[in-house]
């Protein structure tokens, strides 16, 4: 895997990279959960920016609302149907190699270990926690069986608790420690639950720093 393109992810989302760099970012993020989360945030930001401007321009152009993919003389796939087969063959040939995972089961933190297997084999949603003292995003398996936390902007080398509220009861999911640069990743497995609230609290400081919703 190529080095993390940390300083190019937002530029990719804003359209400031050339084509080759765009491909590199996409291909890397396909298999790197940490960069995928950062990129997802950046894509959402640009998507929200586009959402306003596109309404005005959409009214000015005439375009069939539901143009079928394989209909119409101007359709690329209709003109070059081999391309669909080509990309399908390429996609089918891609294998995601998962190795080096050492996931400890139960409510236990594995800081800085990327849960590639879980991310590859599951469907998930993510919750952005809002508040003071950093940026935290928690990704949750749609069945509620695992949580993956990504954070930055935290106090360097500080210890934090993640709490979840399930069926009205708050409980500690686990602890994590930020790096020298204030970043953190952590992963927990648990039984299938529907989480109602998430909170991140600095250990030793009782006040809630960040919360979702």
């Amino acid at each position, binding site marked *: 895997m190529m080095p993390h393109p*940390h*300083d*190019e*992810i*937002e*530029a*990719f*989302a*804003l*359209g*400031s*990279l050339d*084509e080759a760099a*765009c491909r590199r970012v*996409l291909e890397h*993020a*396909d298999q790197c*959960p940490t960069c*995928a989360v950062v*990129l*997802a*945030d*950046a*894509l*959402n*930001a*640009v*998507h*929200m*920016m*586009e*959402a*306003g*401007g*596109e309404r*005005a*321009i*959409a009214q000015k*152009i005439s*375009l069939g609302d*539901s*143009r*079928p*993919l394989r209909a119409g003389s*101007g*359709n*690329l*796939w209709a003109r070059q149907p081999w391309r*669909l087969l080509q*990309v399908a063959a*390429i*996609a*089918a040939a*891609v294998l995601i190699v998962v190795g080096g995972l050492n996931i400890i089961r139960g409510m236990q933190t594995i800081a800085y270990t990327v849960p590639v297997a879980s991310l*590859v084999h599951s*469907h*998930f949603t*993510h919750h952005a926690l*809002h508040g003071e003292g950093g*940026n935290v995003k928690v990704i949750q398996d749609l069945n509620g069986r695992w949580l993956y936390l990504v954070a930055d902007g935290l106090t360097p080398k500080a210890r934090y608790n993640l709490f979840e509220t399930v069926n009205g009861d708050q409980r500690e999911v686990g602890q994590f420690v930020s790096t020298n640069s204030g970043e953190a990743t952590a992963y927990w497995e648990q039984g299938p639950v529907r989480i109602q609230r998430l909170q991140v609290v600095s250990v030793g400081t009782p006040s809630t720093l960040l919360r979702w919703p």
Partner: protein
Amino acid sequence: MAPADATDLVTRLISGDPTALEDAYREHARRCNAIAYKILRNDDQSRDVVQEAFLTLWRHREGLVVRTAGIAPWLTVVTRNAALAALRSAGARSRREERAHTSDMKTDAPDPADLVSASVDASRVRRAIASLSAEQQTVVELAYFRFMTMSQIAETTQTPLGTVKRRIQLALRHLGRILSEQRS
């Protein structure tokens, strides 16, 4: 599209169901066309760009970003990037022809001011941009509204490339937070 439908669509895409791609096209092609047209101002080029974006979606359908961000934000950015690549390619071609013929040649490149005015109804976005520092506003304006690459921004603003990258990074993260809070 409801969240459950969007999740189902992603699941079907990952499983390689070609009808999922057609459903995605029906759901998102119009918006993608609007994004491409806003940059290219050319129907044929816009359609080709959108087709390329959906081919790219098929190619990356198993990727983590598609599943994390969802199809709509992913397609928005990939379509926009493809349109910008086409615009830059057309711009480079125009400059070559201009040099060869030493004549004035009108290009299809959109007027940035026109594009900004097309977005005037997005006051929410403009307010979010206004909350950035002056330096961050500049890089967002140049990257997002004037379609400049990082190198061009560095040259235009006489700023080191690394500084431009960092400003873009901080600016977009800030915008994402502000817009998310406004939405929620």
